[in-house]
């Protein structure tokens, strides 16, 4: 889950970069930029959940 989360973070960023390079119109660019950030948010959730300590390890 951790690796998947980090891959999603990178994928979201690459989507943002690709949007900049490939799209010219403002609405499409805005939409895809927000989509890239959305992918990053999902990745962040996965990474954060993967780092929650398991019950036995606490304390």
């Amino acid at each position: 889950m951790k690796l998947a989360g980090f891959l999603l973070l990178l994928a979201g960023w690459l989507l943002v970069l690709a949007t900049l390079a490939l799209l010219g119109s403002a609405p499409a660019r805005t939409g895809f930029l927000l989509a890239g950030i959305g992918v990053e948010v999902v990745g962040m959730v996965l990474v954060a959940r993967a780092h929650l300590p398991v019950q036995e390890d606490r304390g």
Partner: protein
Amino acid sequence: MTLSPAAVISPALSETTAGICFLLILVVPFALVGLALINTGLGRSRSAAHSMMGSLMAIAVAVLVYFIFGFSWQGFAGGPYHAIIVGGNPWNWIAAEPFFMRGMDFNGSYSSLVALLQMFCVGLAVLIPLGAGADRWRLGAICASSALFAGLTYPLFGHWVWSDGWLAQLGVNYGLGHGFVDVGGSSSIQVVGGLTALSLAWILGPRRGKYSAEGMPAAVPGHNAVLVILGCLLATVGWCGLNSAGAILFIHAEAARCVLVTVNTMLAAASAGLTAAAITQIRFRKPDASLTANGWMGGLVASSAACAFVKPAAAVVVGIIAGALVTFAVEWFEFELKVDDPGGAISVHAVAGIWGILAVGILARFPVAPLFSGNLPGTDAGQWLAQLIGIATLIGFVLPLTYGLNWLLNRFYPQRVSIEGERQGMDLHELGADAYPDFVTHADEFIQR
């Protein structure tokens, strides 16, 4: 990949402006002192000397590594750089300066002042993760991690923001406002440091006894509120210098603009501190000193990005939101995400820093001459998108990079101290002497709950 010669001539500074800028840079070390004191005060008493020693060593390593090759990759606006051409637009991604700062004239030139300020900035940035790793991060690992930070993570993102990198050029190349704007380092110092702090908190894990078997966090209060609040006051002095020098060097503001920058910095810190105090007063019936201090610092952090472009009333808004965000974020990280961050570094530097970056897109108004000798290229339209792209880069690229580097380091050189060392205290275990030899070591936090 193209090695391009200087595409832009470095901004020329008058002798007076260079002198003022040099004096402003000289007060920046107060920010380092303040942050070191805050980290120490919010940690345990048996790790106090270790915390200050760790700060000193981290700064030393960072400055040396930055001198050897960090600056050569960060560079300065108008210096040589490597670029790739995408869709006809050059993406300036890394500088091409010589190692060891060779060939630089240390005579008050633009590049020499940038190099001097950056040495203090990288010193400030490496102190941020120390707040999150307090009481369990080995001294050797602090040095190694600081070297990676100062040699790779910091210069790369710093170049993109402050040295005409691709983020700064978003306005020219893609019509997104004036490009990514950050006057005093909300992003390149604070968020980069804060995300490294988050990575380390994850990699190191919580302190022994911090969480019960049911996952409930135990309160481990800081050992010296006086150090923490003194640290805030000292950091404020340093921040005024940092933001003002950043305004002169990175957005080419006239020296007169530094008055507004300093007023905004103070207003943001004051309103953030008061907000945090009010929120804790309402919620806990007494103002909490450590959260108020964190709120104050959050105001400083958030003020950095927009301080030269907002009116004083807007700086108050920036501070109020930063103070509230920090107060709730500290609790959220501790209770919901189970992240043990004794110094509140993630909330103060990453969360408030991201808000500061966003504030540029929402609240900034970009003036032109006579307060700016070199106008920022572009128009105001789309500025918020440029700021969002900067945040996406921090979360999507800098976080995986800094996590990966520290994870790799941890594989070869474990960063966390042994259980015995943690029980004994970092001072005795790693330094052989306590900061406060008269104190008695309590072991109650090691009792299983």
